[in-house]
């Protein structure tokens, strides 16, 4: 595949509905809006205090007073507003964010996610990730299926959890996996791979439904 990240982002874009309030993690998730059809308008939220982030232009650029959740210069879009951290996380924790899209180091078949710490090595902190995972109505993990060939979709996460039983869907270049009470259901697969190849790249046991579809 030429551009794995773009492929994943394009598929994630189909999960978002017109009018959704969406929080995007750093990296791959930020590519998603470029793939939204013209009929779908979402409100992007930046957990440090912007509802309705917009494009930075020469005219509105103000990195001293307006930054995104990564600390980079940002801007408020048309119809947006600024809120403080307690209101912002009230919005998040209170279920007012329709979807959050973020990456993961490890995810598991219970729908748990680990992406914030590698003990003894990297302790950057969880920032707002734990609140987003617990609060957003839909939690979409968008990531490459494996890391240097090793499965990232596990039976049980080995790294410390960011949140437990929180994921709605996992979207990779190999397929779309839905978290259910019974485990991970492979709802869609990328026809470039066989189901056997996908399972081989996955530590968790995938449930293959009778109506398995190609990725759309």
């Amino acid at each position, binding site marked *: 595949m030429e551009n794995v990240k773009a492929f994943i982002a394009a598929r994630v874009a189909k999960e978002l509905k017109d009018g959704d309030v969406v929080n995007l993690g750093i990296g791959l998730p930020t590519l998603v809006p470029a793939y939204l059809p013209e009929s779908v308008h979402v409100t992007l939220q*930046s*957990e*440090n*205090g*912007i509802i309705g982030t917009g494009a930075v232009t020469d005219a509105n650029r*103000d*990195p*001293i*007073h*307006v*930054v995104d959740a*990564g*600390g980079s*210069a*940002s801007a*408020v879009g048309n119809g947006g507003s*600024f*809120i*403080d*951290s*307690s209101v*912002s*996380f009230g919005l*998040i*924790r209170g279920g007012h964010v329709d979807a959050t899209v973020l990456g993961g180091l490890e995810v598991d078949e219970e729908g*748990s996610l680990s992406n914030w*710490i590698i003990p*003894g090595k*990297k*302790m*950057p*902190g*969880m*920032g*707002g*990730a*734990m*609140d987003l995972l*617990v*609060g957003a109505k839909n939690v979409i993990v968008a990531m490459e299926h494996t890391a240097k060939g090793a499965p990232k979709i596990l039976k049980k996460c080995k790294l*410390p*959890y*960011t*949140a*437990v*039983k929180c994921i709605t869907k996992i979207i990779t270049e190999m397929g779309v996996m839905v978290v259910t009470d019974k485990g991970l259901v492979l709802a869609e697969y990328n026809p470039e791979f066989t189901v056997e190849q996908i399972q081989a790249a996955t530590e968790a046991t995938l449930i293959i439904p009778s109506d398995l579809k190609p990725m759309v």
Partner: protein
Amino acid sequence: MAKFVSIEEAVALIPDGASIMFGGFMGCGNAHKFVDALSKSGKKDLTMICNDASMPGGPMGEDYYGVAKLVHNKQIKKLVATHVGLNPEVATQSMTDKTLEVVLIPQGSMAEMIRAGGAGLGGVLTPTGVGTIVEENPYCLGKQTINGKDYLLMAPILADFAVIAGYKIDKAGNVWYKGDTSNFNIVMATAGATVIAEAEQVVEIGDITPEDVRTSGVFVDYVVEGGLY
């Protein structure tokens, strides 16, 4: 009533070993001129409560941006934050040199814990962090099940000082924030025993419409004028 003092007078209020909350997110909304002066003051053994430790390399080419200066100058003994990944000196001081204690708290919990401190509440019951190592956090007072759902009881956070940054502050101490600089400043203004507010501009009473005041002057003890950044 808010007193208007010089930055030097405000820095002189801080004793070694004080706990200080700093509003701001990756430097955005830090009280830059006050932090600058504090970083040159030699005050030490401070406990810093701030979303993050900012970063080296500010947006205007600063070597160290905002509160990153205090870490760089090794004035911080303990840091309570949500994310420190963009300031590599935190990892060096905490994991290699072991001279800095770091406590990490989820961002939404931290905002709410500070708000709870300022609002006289006994704690925060949040679903955030359930089932994670946050349960072992020194600020986590236990887990409770309410209506069948698990919540962590997180302790309120107060500090000796809160240092906040407003864009416009009027002569009565009322604060208006520009852009998303309000972030932690609004809750912290309620939770410091002494609140120091840095204004980019000091304005006359009436310049901020009473409805548009975001931190009321009654919360503010001292105002310093920092000038436009």
